[in-house]
């Protein structure tokens, strides 16, 4: 677990510095830990697990600038996953679905689950409901994989506007996940 913590921390810190390849591995490994954590605690709502995995991944992504390399990564990840889980249960008014303690941050990386269920909510459909500038910036940069410069040329936005719209679009997406769930 210490090894997993150090390894993931290294990947995330590199990701914060702009290393997209390291960041991708970080998110892939994180997905399995998130799924194990959420599946165990959402046994009353099994259909919601994969949706919440995606919502928590987006939360980690949108908040990745708040991780301080001096703090335990496990605690940071656990706090975000727990926050999203409690938020969902509150929306469902399902305190009873909590049949497992939420406070064992240390165990967060102990379990992994790579058996993905189908998500009920389709993120692609949600993306289509974003404001045009945000949607186009995300589609070109993050789905097609174009560079900032290419996206800027295609959309007629400035390069900084492209970055801002990707950032805002992912925040809007998080809001939509929250409110439609």
């Amino acid at each position, binding site marked *: 677990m210490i090894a997993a913590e150090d390894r993931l921390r290294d990947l995330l810190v590199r*990701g*914060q*510095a*702009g290393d*997209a390849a390291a*960041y*991708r591995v970080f*998110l*892939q490994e994180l*997905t399995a830990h998130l*799924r194990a954590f959420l599946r165990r605690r959402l046994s009353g709502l099994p259909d919601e697990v*994969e949706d919440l*995995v*995606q919502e928590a*991944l*987006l*939360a980690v*992504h*949108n*908040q*990745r*600038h*708040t*991780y*301080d*390399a001096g*703090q*335990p990564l*496990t*605690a*940071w*990840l*656990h*706090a*975000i996953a*727990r*926050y999203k889980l409690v*938020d969902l249960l509150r929306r469902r008014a399902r305190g009873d679905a909590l049949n497992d303690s939420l406070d064992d*941050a240390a165990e967060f990386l102990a379990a992994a689950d790579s058996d*993905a269920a*189908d*998500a009920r909510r*389709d*993120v*692609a459909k949600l993306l289509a409901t974003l404001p045009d500038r945000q949607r186009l910036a*995300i589609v070109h*940069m*993050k*789905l097609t*994989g*174009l*560079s*900032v410069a290419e996206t800027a040329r295609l959309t007629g936005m400035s390069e900084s506007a492209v*970055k801002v719209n*990707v950032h805002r679009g*992912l925040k809007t997406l*998080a809001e939509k996940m929250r409110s439609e769930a």
Partner: protein
Amino acid sequence: MRTDEFVSLLATGTDAVDVRAPARRCVAAMVGGTVVATILMALWLDVRPTLARDANLPMFWVKELFCVALVAAGVFAVARLSRPGAAVGRVEPLAGAPILAMWLLAVVVLAVAEPEDRTDLIRGVSWTECPYNIAVLSVPVFVAIVWAMRGFAPTHLRRAGAAAGFAAGAIGALAYTLHCPELDAPFLAIWYVAGVLIPSVVGAIVGPRLLRW
């Protein structure tokens, strides 16, 4: 969209993030809030004319130190409660420490005072306006701190809102010391603390709505 596709979307084309940006925003909010609260105090309430003379009295500096300690505890609370997974166990004890110290001092002052003086020590000349003035001065600071905290990701929203209110109230109290004529510990222990607790309670109430993400 499958989760692995979504991960790919998130990872593709990611840029470096500025990990110091939220802390800078917090410092800017505190400094800006302090300046605005002080200007508001000067325009609305006036700096006390006898301020220079009061600065010779030890109790004036005890009062300043008390407010600075409250501000420090508030800043600590805001910093800790803004970041997911940060250790938050010492937030409340640290905020309570200066208040407890002032209460102890107040008890000693009241114990040695003549019984007929005690009411004056508690009420001073401005007990009806003090908590209200501090709470009003804290409003711009509270707005600035909440804005800064929204750049972070607080996960205990009620405590985070209370921390924002406490820090704002403490900064409001510090600004108010330049106007306020009171120097007795029992007064500070009750009315200053009330002035700081009003925005703290308001923060705890509105925190979940203002800070969720």
